[in-house]
């Protein structure tokens, strides 16, 4: 037995016969095709996996640092000369979520919290505000950790490998909201007295006053 389709679904077919309706469907099809093509072209570009290096390259990235012969310098402290980053641009560490969270972990593990608390300060100066006595650049912070500073900051050179000092320095910047929001840690594991690093508004660095002890010859 044969039955024509129009008797089965008359309403639908009548609507389909309508020319403007058909044009509409065609346009919708074109739009979908275009979207699929766009996704095909730009999809892989937007989805880029974060690069993660476990091993500083080259392995000699843990080699001896450039040794400064004098602690004296004119004016405000400048970023130290060619710190050893194992071939990486130091700002890479503050854009990389894995490095920042590793820095967060090491910040507790190496007992930075003993003096600086979780950024609020105590024996040492606070790290979540806008005042930076020795500069807010990641290279300044690297120097502070590796060389030490007068009035109590110990030198961690030779104790912490440079790779890890960079991670800690990047994390220290994230405490004041100076690192990209997307990369900063969003949840601390300790008791939370303040908002997480990723929701801290940036504190524009205002410099600071260098204590007299830091300018006098050691």
């Amino acid at each position, binding site marked *: 037995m044969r039955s024509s389709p129009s008797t089965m679904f008359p309403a639908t077919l009548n609507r389909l016969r309508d020319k403007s309706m058909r044009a509409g469907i065609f346009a919708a099809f074109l739009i979908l095709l275009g979207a699929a093509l766009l996704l095909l072209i730009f999809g892989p570009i937007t989805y880029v996996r974060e690069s993660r290096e476990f*091993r500083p390259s080259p*392995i000699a990235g843990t*080699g001896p640092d450039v040794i400064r012969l004098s602690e004296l310098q004119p004016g405000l402290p400048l970023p130290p000369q060619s710190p050893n980053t194992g071939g990486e641009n130091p700002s890479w560490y503050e854009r990389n979520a894995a490095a920042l969270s590793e820095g967060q972990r090491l910040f507790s593990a*190496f007992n930075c919290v003993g003096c600086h608390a979780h950024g609020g300060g105590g024996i040492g100066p606070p790290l979540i505000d806008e005042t930076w006595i020795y500069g807010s650049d990641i290279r300044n912070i690297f120097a502070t950790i590796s060389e030490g500073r007068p009035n109590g900051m110990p030198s961690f050179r030779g*104790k912490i*490998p440079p790779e890890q000092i960079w991670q800690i320095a990047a994390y220290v910047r994230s405490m004041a909201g100076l690192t990209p929001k997307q990369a900063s840690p969003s949840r601390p594991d300790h008791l939370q007295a303040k908002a997480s690093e990723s929701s801290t508004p940036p504190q524009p660095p205002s410099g600071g006053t260098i204590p007299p002890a830091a300018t006098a010859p050691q």
Partner: protein
Amino acid sequence: MMRAANYRSSAATAAALLLAGCQGPQNILDVAGEQAERIAGLWYFLIAVTTVVWVLVVLTMFGAIWRRRVRAEPTDIPGEPSPTRGERRLGVVVGSAVVLTTITLIAFTLDSFFVERRTFAAPPDKALEIQVTGHQWWWQVRYMDPDPSKIVETANEIHIPTGRKVKIRLDSPDVIHSFWVPSLHGKRDLIPGQEAIFWIEADRPGAYRGQCAEFCGWQHAHMSFWVYAEQPQLFDAWLQQQRQPAPEPQGEAAKRGRDLFVTGPCALCHNISGTVASARFGPDLTHLASRDWIAAGTLPNNRGYLAAWIADPQSLKPGNRMPATFLAPEDMQNLLAYLETLQ
């Protein structure tokens, strides 16, 4: 011909793989304790019953294929054939099969419930207590004692006395791990912030391999450990030995190695009792040389692997928490000489 040979070789491989599951160091059927025995008993019960069920189902299927089709007889109701005697018998068979299936499933559920209730029952109070903490990616093991000076800490190797119940407390500071020694017990998860307590017992001396059984990151596969069950007096001697601080190094090389350890980066993460190195971040190294493995069962503990591990841990176990340490060759030898004295 080629194809037949391929099939034969892949069938042989599959059979070998299946059989390999029944032997080796991690085996639930190689029972070494009361708890594992119960679990193995449950396994044997399930496999025996399901084998019988499978054989019955397959026989019925072949019977149905082989049997001649019964023609329907006419009935009073138009268009509705009355059930034949064969069909009535079939109804009884299918009905009783459904009832039997239900009974079997209930029996499985009850057996599994009672086995689990007994295997995870609370440990007795006077059991030896061991705190096991799972880290990414190693096991921290602490032998608890009311006297804090007698608490012993080690890593990735658990010594237990035979014939004595051992209470295990599990905890994790980072992600979920799972503690699994197939010869001694089932899996038990380590959930951050939630302590799990259970007990194990070994009836015969031996080395039983354990493995993290919950995916916990890059090096989940390299997070294994060994349980050594020993005669009680051997165990007591071992525990007594582990309570001692590290011996004072003898000889120039070992002394220099000790100085390198306590002044260098090692001391920021590791503890060696009897020295100033007292960090609690990496594994305790007080009796490192008494262990058979390093890096959570990844490498055998000998001078060569230890040197490779210190020089470049990230090539051996990528992603682990230990950074590479730059040491002059001479200093590396001194450090190794010192580490070898940590019996």
